[in-house]
């Protein structure tokens, strides 16, 4: 059972200005450790930008983001990202793609056996143990996205950021990948933040949803996602 009392992601008075006409914030959100939060809202409201800010890929105009109590000053493997496209390195094998973060953090060099075991475990967890030596183009879209999931989880991030990772997949593949994400992230104790347009993704994977709306984009609804989640979320999205 995960400890869910401690705050993992603390977003304080966060603002980001896209241009003269569009802005995000101020946004204040606290996400507990191990929590799974979906961010929903209309296109262009700033959901993916919020994710990029948490990942440290963009700098806020004002405000602060803390992960595990430490301020976010740039990208780091504490919060890894899974995108809509797998974006695998086409020249590297499946196992080399998964090991990328372990090469960057030095584990592949300092403890090669541990790194190899970690890659093998993750590939087994996503059902691709027998494709370790394959190149990305030899895999289906769903398999490639599974490799991207394993790659994002390999450095054991505290936070896994998911930017519409299921949107390009067919329904059976999408459901299978959602199950993989849910199972492996729970096993690792990672906090999940999912940006999606699809309420079904939010309900299937998350226990909380925040809805962004307006300009500047703000949190217009923040709710638990239970059995009646679809109805509440649909209403909240309409209101946003």
């Amino acid at each position, binding site marked *: 059972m995960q400890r869910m009392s401690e705050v993992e992601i603390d977003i304080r008075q966060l603002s980001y200005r896209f241009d003269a006409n569009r802005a995000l914030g101020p946004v204040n959100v606290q996400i507990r450790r191990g929590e799974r939060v979906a961010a929903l809202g209309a296109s262009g409201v700033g959901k993916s930008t919020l994710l990029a800010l948490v*990942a*440290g*890929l963009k700098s806020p105009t004002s405000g602060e983001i803390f992960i595990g109590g430490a301020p976010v000053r740039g*990208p*780091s*493997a504490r*919060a*890894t*990202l899974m*995108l809509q*496209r797998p*974006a695998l*390195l*086409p*020249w*590297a094998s499946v196992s080399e793609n998964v090991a*990328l*973060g372990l*090469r*960057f*953090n030095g584990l592949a060099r300092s403890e090669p056996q541990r790194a190899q075991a970690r890659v093998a475990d993750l590939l087994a967890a996503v059902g691709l143990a027998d494709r370790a030596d394959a*190149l990305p*183009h030899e895999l289906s879209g769903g398999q490639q996205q599974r490799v*991207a999931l394993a*790659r*994002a989880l*390999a*450095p054991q991030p505290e936070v896994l*950021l998911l930017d519409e990772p299921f949107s390009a997949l067919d329904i059976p593949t999408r459901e299978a990948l959602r199950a993989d994400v849910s199972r492996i992230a729970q096993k690792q104790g990672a906090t999940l933040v999912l940006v999606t347009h699809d309420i079904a993704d939010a309900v299937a994977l998350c226990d909380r949803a925040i809805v962004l709306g307006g300009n500047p984009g703000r949190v217009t609804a923040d709710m638990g996602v239970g059995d009646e989640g679809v109805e509440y979320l649909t209403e909240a999205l309409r209101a946003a």
Partner: protein
Amino acid sequence: MTDAIAHGNAPIAPAAQDARSALAIMRWLAPLAGLVAIGLVWQIGGLVLAHDPRFAAFTGFAPAPTLAAFMRLLGSGEAWRAAAPSLARVLGGLGIAFLIGAPLGVLFGSVKLIERALQLPFQILRMVSPLSWMPIAVLAFPTWDGAIVFLIAAAAVWPIVFATAAGVKRIDPAWLLVGRTLGGRGLALVHRVVAPAILPDLLVGLRLALGVAWIVLVPSEFLGVTSGLGYAINDARDTLSYDRLAALVLLIGLIGAALDALLGLIARRVSWTHAH
């Protein structure tokens, strides 16, 4: 429907199989036919020279004396003695062109402002014949070898710059984005993501650069050096040894083609673009 058809393994009709075999044989024979055609043109040229008394001194250019001289070049070791210094100069020039051109290409391809600033001057410099630098090279370098290596580098740098820049522009931004969130920074990101991403383009640039360098080499070696293929050509001309001169031309072509094939082979082995 038979099992074979259902599984996409339908038996090939004998006529179709024959046509495929014939096509495969023709593919193998085509390069040979090209060489035979060139040989025929050469032989006809030789016969024309032999039958015109005005060109009697040039009969050494015909295939038979050329091939005999070529075998003597190989047998006596003169081929290697002439080619080794040339290869060293080309390698030196290409190395310098690579060390300057690859980082410049990365900058050129990745920083818009630098591209805007350097596009016009680079295009102007690129269009200057490398041999135009010869007088400056002779003044600027204390040795003939230095001047030749400079001329080769001046010719070879541009294909490397532009091919590298094209490779950098083709990098998927998502690779860098993901790499950064996985903790990739600076040189580690360059080593794991940028370098392999641009390698196929870089090798294309290097192959083009090799071609240019090999072309520039011979006239550059007409400068004061006393070694190399260009010097050997000059020497053969001065001693009226036209069979040796033609054999050296053949040698230059063969070495150039072999180097190009070698780089092409390496490029094919490391290239990932066909799979992407």
